[in-house]
């Protein structure tokens, strides 16, 4: 009897210890959550703060109102919707085209055997290991030279910016995609080939539908990268109506950061929201991609 109670006592003490451990960890989690979302709450509060300046802000604003949003969206002085539209446009086009380039390339690397295949794969990875940022001067000069001939693909054009972004489409994501393609058994292709399907038909009709999960992940990461890219856009775009949202916000903050903190906060929130929603909604897929080495800028 006595041994039984002691075991029970041990068990309950273990359970108590575990409960204590969970409670401790929940407290730590709470602290971490405060650390991670405090800036966001602060910005939300700032965006509703009627006085709009950095100095007068409190976490729960007095006389909360939509004044900052009105000033941002309706005053006409900040072309917010133009910037936002530019960002969406550039990110969408870049994301779709880059995905097409990556997928077709990965398909060739996965399904065909040709001389120099390994070397090319490694070379692509090595070349893309050099951050595009480092070649900024050269890229800038090249685009300005383009513009001397065709202004449409020169400085201050979205086309040139998208083209520069697409230059890195044959990058690290090709590895991720190729890895995924390698897991699709070749027998599927062979069977279709026996039926008389061409490479192109096999690719579009058979392989692409199977690739859907990874296409979504890479597509979204491409989108997020292009949407958040700042340096190239800052250097290549010159006039306000061509700016992306990131460039616009950065230039806005350079001029009137402290006085118009509330307006910036409103813009930052609207700008961050689409990406945040995508991320939280698809976090499982994106996390899967990240752990396999996909990149986000």
């Amino acid at each position, binding site marked *: 009897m006595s041994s039984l109670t002691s075991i029970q006592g041990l068990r309950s003490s273990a359970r108590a210890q575990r409960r204590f451990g969970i409670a401790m960890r929940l407290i730590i989690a709470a602290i971490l959550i405060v650390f991670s979302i405090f800036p966001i709450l602060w910005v939300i509060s700032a965006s509703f703060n009627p006085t709009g300046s950095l100095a007068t802000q409190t976490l729960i604003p007095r006389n909360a109102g939509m004044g900052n949003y009105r000033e941002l969206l309706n005053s006409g002085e900040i072309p917010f919707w133009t910037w936002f539209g530019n960002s969406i446009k550039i990110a969408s086009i870049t994301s779709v085209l880059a995905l097409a380039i990556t997928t077709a390339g990965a398909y060739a690397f996965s399904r065909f055997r040709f001389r120099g295949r390994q070397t090319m794969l490694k070379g*692509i990875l090595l070349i893309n290991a050099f951050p595009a940022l480092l070649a900024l001067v050269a890229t800038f000069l090249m685009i300005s030279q383009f513009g001397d*001939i065709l202004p449409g693909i020169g400085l201050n054009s979205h086309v040139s910016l998208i083209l520069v972004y697409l230059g890195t489409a044959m990058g690290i994501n090709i590895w991720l995609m190729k890895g995924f393609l390698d897991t699709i058994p070749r027998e599927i292709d062979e069977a279709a080939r026996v039926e008389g399907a061409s490479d192109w038909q096999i690719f579009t009709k058979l392989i692409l539908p199977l690739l859907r999960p990874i296409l979504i992940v890479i597509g979204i990461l491409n989108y997020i990268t292009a949407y958040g890219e700042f340096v190239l856009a800052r250097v290549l775009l010159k006039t306000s109506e061509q700016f992306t949202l990131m460039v616009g916000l950065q230039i806005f903050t350079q001029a009137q950061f402290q006085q118009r903190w509330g307006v910036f906060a409103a813009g930052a929130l609207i700008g961050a929201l689409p990406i945040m929603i995508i991320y939280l909604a698809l976090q499982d897929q994106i996390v899967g991609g990240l752990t396999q080495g996909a990149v986000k800028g």
Partner: protein
Amino acid sequence: MTSIPSQESRTAGATSSIPVLPRLMNFLILIAIDVCVIWFLSRLVSLGYYPLAAAILIILVFVNVVLLLRPARPIRWMVIGLALMGLFVIYPIFFTVWVSFTNYGEGHLITKEQATDQILRAKYLPEAGKAYSWTAFKSPQGDYALWLVDADGNGYLAMVGEPLTQPQPGEAGVGELDEKGIPTTIEGYQKLNAIRAATDQNLTEILFGEEGKTIQVRSPSEAAELLPLYIYDPDRDAMISQETGITYQNIRGTFTAQNGTQLRPGFIESVRFTNFRDFFISPALRGPLVRIILWNFAFAFFSLVFNFALGLAIAIMFNDKFFPFKKVIRSLLIIPYTIPALITILIWRGMLNPELGVFDRMLESLFGWAPPWFTDQWWSKIAILIVNLWLSYPYFMLVCSGALQSISEDYYAAAQVDGASLWQQFWNITLPLLLVAVGPLLVASFTFNFNNFNLIYLFNQGLPPMAGTPTPAGHTDILISYVYNLAFSGNRGVNYGFASAITIVIFLFVGVITLFQFRFTNMWE
């Protein structure tokens, strides 16, 4: 790998029988593209952009070879991607290498041809030069002619690009002369009255007469035969002033006289290893550069350690299938990662603002003191590390929790039997196995932070400034933001050459790390 032969035979044997019409269409499209690109190339060449023209030509040849030759069929799948990579990634790398060996930058922005052309256009009036009084005539098409009268009263007709002539009335369309010896009419031209001629902006620009003996309007009353001020001597690579006889020697892309006076504009010229030598041994630059490099490494290293440590700690803490609210906690903790970095960095800049920002006001009211996040070099470095921690720990949290789940429970069970403490389990099982899995990502993160321009530039633009540096540099500048300042902060003197040289050094460094990463991880299948 046994399947390779069968595939090779398939690839080689797969002669797809594309019908003739689509194939012809493809061929025509290719020709159309070729024609457009070649037109573009010719324009590039005519503007003197030879490196870019060469790059585009190589890419064009490559694309055509791939599309036309049968053995290159697999490459067709990626030809667009490769062409774009060639133009926007590889060419800029080569171009950067080239620029790093030149003096490209402020005062050296044009080619030598363009610069000598501009310098040779300068004129002077030799002492023995002839001066004339002049009368201008203008044709309806906008061409000008001058009627010149020299000191002896002889009349000359001067047109652009032709030698002077001495026509008599009636010849070459010249009408009757008036009492001053000036023709009343010239056929096809209309005489300009003195006021219109004096105010005509074009007139002073035009060189009349034949090349080398040109005549130019110098004042409302005088036109004179001007000679080129400089003559270029290709043997000595120098400009010689005809007026003073001074020789201006080409020194590093500027024609410079012995006494130091220079002819503008300068031009782009190879300076060999000067930029690299400056980077490594210039005493003026050594101070700031050494500090920038040290901080660059420290920043990348500490960012990695802190971000990874916090991410890992969180991952281990919640690596428990039955933990309550696990999903919600994770969603809340990855929020920092879901916002575009630019926005979060700017938010932090506002929050850490001294006096006005929330943190400083809070600390101020609690302790009566708050760190000067932007003006003190150490506090701004700490601020940058804190912001980076906030930005990146969610990434490591996600990556580590994924990797932790792949570590087999058996190891821990065995360790418990042997009586290992939790601490020992962590150091001897968790960490080594985890590092194998996330090692490549750690290296990638190090190189990413090594060039994390966004954070440095957006947070504080590399400030506070270092005192007494020859080129602007700040205490939180890393190499890449220093390069950006050199190349793009127009008002402080751009220096593409030196910026590119630093870029190459970073290139090499990042390349070595990447190769190392390839070597010691199993990325190659």
